[in-house]
């Protein structure tokens, strides 16, 4: 019992940048959210290459944090008849996304030059 308590406390509940993106992609893909598709979508959206392993590892970590649940889905022929693991966002996952967004907005709101209206990005 004590051991569980400790691990519960120790568990990281903050979202990293990559994790946030993946979490959002899971939300976007909805019923098609499995590792391969998520990696594809990531590459399409960000134009950055990523390995399935890296995505899978992050999904796994998000699952550990309680932001995602998963279950085995249907199998298709192009997978050699193998089933895929479909991920869905949990309530705490949604909350974490919301918090992250709110946090960033509040940061933006505090940005003085932006508040003054003449933000200069040196473009």
């Amino acid at each position, binding site marked *: 019992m004590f051991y569980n308590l400790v691990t519960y406390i120790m568990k990281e509940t903050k979202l990293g940048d990559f994790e946030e993106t993946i979490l959002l992609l899971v939300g976007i893909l909805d019923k098609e959210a*499995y*590792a*391969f598709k998520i*990696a*594809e979508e990531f590459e399409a959206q960000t134009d950055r290459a990523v*390995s*399935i*392993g*890296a995505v*899978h*590892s992050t999904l*796994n*970590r998000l699952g550990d944090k309680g932001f995602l649940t998963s279950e*085995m889905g249907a*199998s298709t022929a*192009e*997978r*050699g008849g*193998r*089933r*895929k*693991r479909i991920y869905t966002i949990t309530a705490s996952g949604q909350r974490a996304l919301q918090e992250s967004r709110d946090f960033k907005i509040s940061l933006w709101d505090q940005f003085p030059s932006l508040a003054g209206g003449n933000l200069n990005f040196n473009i």
Partner: protein
Amino acid sequence: MSRGKDHITPPRLAEKLLLWFLKDELAEEVLGDLEEKFKDILKTNGLRKANRNYCYQVFKYLRPFALKRIRSKRINNTMYINHTKVALRSLSRNKLFTFINITGMAIGMSVALLIINLVFDALKFDQFHTKKDRIYRVLSTPKHIGHAWDENATAPAPLASFLETDIPGIEEVVRIRRRFSGRVKKEDGSLFAQGIYADDSFFKVFSFGLLQGNPETALQNPYDLVLTQTLAEKLRPGEDLMGQVLTIPDRGEFLVTGIVEDPPAHSHMKFELITSFKTVKPLEEKELIFASSENWEDFNTSYVYFLVKDTEQIMAVENRLNEMSISQYASNERLEVSFSTQNITSIVPGKDLNNQIGAELIPLPIIILSIIAIAIVLSACFNYTNLSIARAMRRSKEIGVRKIVGSSKSQIFIQFSVETVVMTILSVFFSTLLFLVIKPLFITSIPRIDLIMEFNTSPVLMLYFLLFAVVIGLVSGLFPALFFSRLKPLNALRSNGSIRLFSHIKVRKALIVLQFSLSVLFLIAMNVVFKQYRYAMAYDMGFKEENILNLSLNGNDHERLIAELEKIPEISQLSGSSAVPGTTASNTTMVKSSNGVDSVRVNFLSVNPNFMDIHNLKLISGEVYPANQQNEILNKMLVNEEFAHVHGYNEVNDIIGEVFYMNQSLLTVTGVLEDFNFQTIEEPIRPLILFDSPSNYEFLNLNVQASDLPNVFDKIEKAWTAVDEETELELKFLDQELEESNAFLMIFVRVFGFLGLVAVSIACLGLLGMAVFTAETRVKEIGIRKAIGASVNQLIYTLSKSYLFLIIISGFVGGTLAYILLQKVILPEIHHHVNVGFFEFAIAIGMLFLLALLAIGSQTWRAASRNPSESLRSE
């Protein structure tokens, strides 16, 4: 048939790799994802890219979350201590098995250690020279057309200056001439010493440590003399000899210019004296030694060693020598000479050459000994493997429990390996004790071996040996350990009979056959060599052997000694000779027929005419030459039949009166002797000439007719001391000496006998173990058979028949091997040899059969005569 892109699968190897490290529960989804990715890329970018990407993706799965959990081994000291404890317990529980294993291993290892020591010693020859890689000597092969030719360790002396001036890349050249010997005068009397003539570069090339004197100049001038430490100490104890003049009669007065360390035991050349090569010339001019130093056609007197700058040049040097040989010998169209070179480290052990300067050792015995050592150790290993697997039945429960409690395969493996290592270490301990016992026995049983072998058991050697022992342990433990670790716990715990133990029965049988074949081989070898020994002892050498005493002159004046000996009435006849007939190789020389074209190598004996009478040599034709009284010029000789035949005289009478050249002398044949074995029976009878040149006498042959031998010995001793007070009298009966020259065969008998004993005892121990095991596992069966009515004899037959069959096979295999090895490899080395006969086979196989029967019989009889009620009662 093309199946299209849909049926192309991802690379198998990468997939396998993935499955190897990936958690099992992730396999399905990951493989699916990767395959989708693969097909995706296949469609757009082609197979090669797809394959490459697949591998990349697999590689990227090397992440902690995806890896299989490595079962924590938790191997720590406690576990090893436990393993050792269990090992010791199991060893002490099975006392008989432990005894058999340790005894077998210890015997095998001690023999192996002895042989390893021997081989190491043989390989140490000439390793002490710091420039050993660059020191070579020239070998010469003169081919006289129409005659057999030999390769010589010697080469013509003038070759040295050619090497020095005409061949680039040679740093130093040393000419060496052997047989510089004589009695060195000391304050009172004289001392016989032997040595060599050598150029002043001697100490630059070889690493003999010069204790006193300048290595550059010590051998610079004629009559310079370098002595070994031991000889110097003997000549003038405690005195500094440097710069003093020593007299050697018939050679001259020498100035001591250096003191050198005694040459090490494993130097291929040995000497007590070295004089400068410049001394050769004046001695040749005075006709004290035979003129050879300018002679391009003398291939037997001098050695040419050289130091090459770059070892890669050696082939070029050899080619240059052979080019030179063509022009050098162009004038003699019946002679062709080829030269080759030999590195100093490949002299001993090395090829069989004529005129070796010192120790000789051909590699064959070393190879044979090494194989034997390996075979014996393997045989001991087989015992261990065999018995361990046989014991599996009893230990399977233990393993089953261990596995169920949670032992992994590797833990069981380690446990059994530890057990083997413990056993091996015990064996090493006993084998070292055994080795210390057999080593002195071995050394004393082989005469003169201490001259070439040091038998230093150095710590390094012991370290190697320990390593070797551990490796042996692991090798013999590997099979049982693997076997046990693979045992399925469920099978192991189920009732005894169901274990598939007997699937290994073929391996075990094969091992037994191998062991016994080896034993048969050694026993037959021992018998055959013993047969050869008896044959050699009974062989009619063609001359009288009894009642002849040979006295070694050791450089003393033969005339003075003869004068003293002639006073003894029991000595009926007396002669001088250059060698003892029937023993070692006599000297050789080149002889040309009077038409002057053909030189033939012949053996010569320089003997007094009495020699023929004393030895009962039969004259077939002509007459014996008269004695050479005043050292007159040689002009008469006797030849043997073989000599006449080689020179093309089919009718021996025809050769009488013919004239031959030997070096510069002209010799007329006065008579022909019937062939006799003047060398050992190892050699065929070769062409031989006999003449009387008293300066070549090395021995006196005394024909003694007396009943009171000790009395005669006393008288001879007195005569000897009247001439030489220093040296001990060396006196031997001819038949005794002949016996000694055959002693090497007796050594073989002993060695093979010893090895045979070792192999047989190891094999029998193994068989004993197997018999015990069979009897134990079949206790119930025997009980039932007995209860039903089988007799003890029938039971013994049932229990032993499979083993007896194996031994018959072994007899067959070992016998064939022995026949091939002895009849085709070893015996042909001896010219007059026996053949392997049925009798030797029968004795060896019979002996083995008897021993095996004893081993099996004792156990089966015990098992068979037990009361069946005892074995059947407990269930």
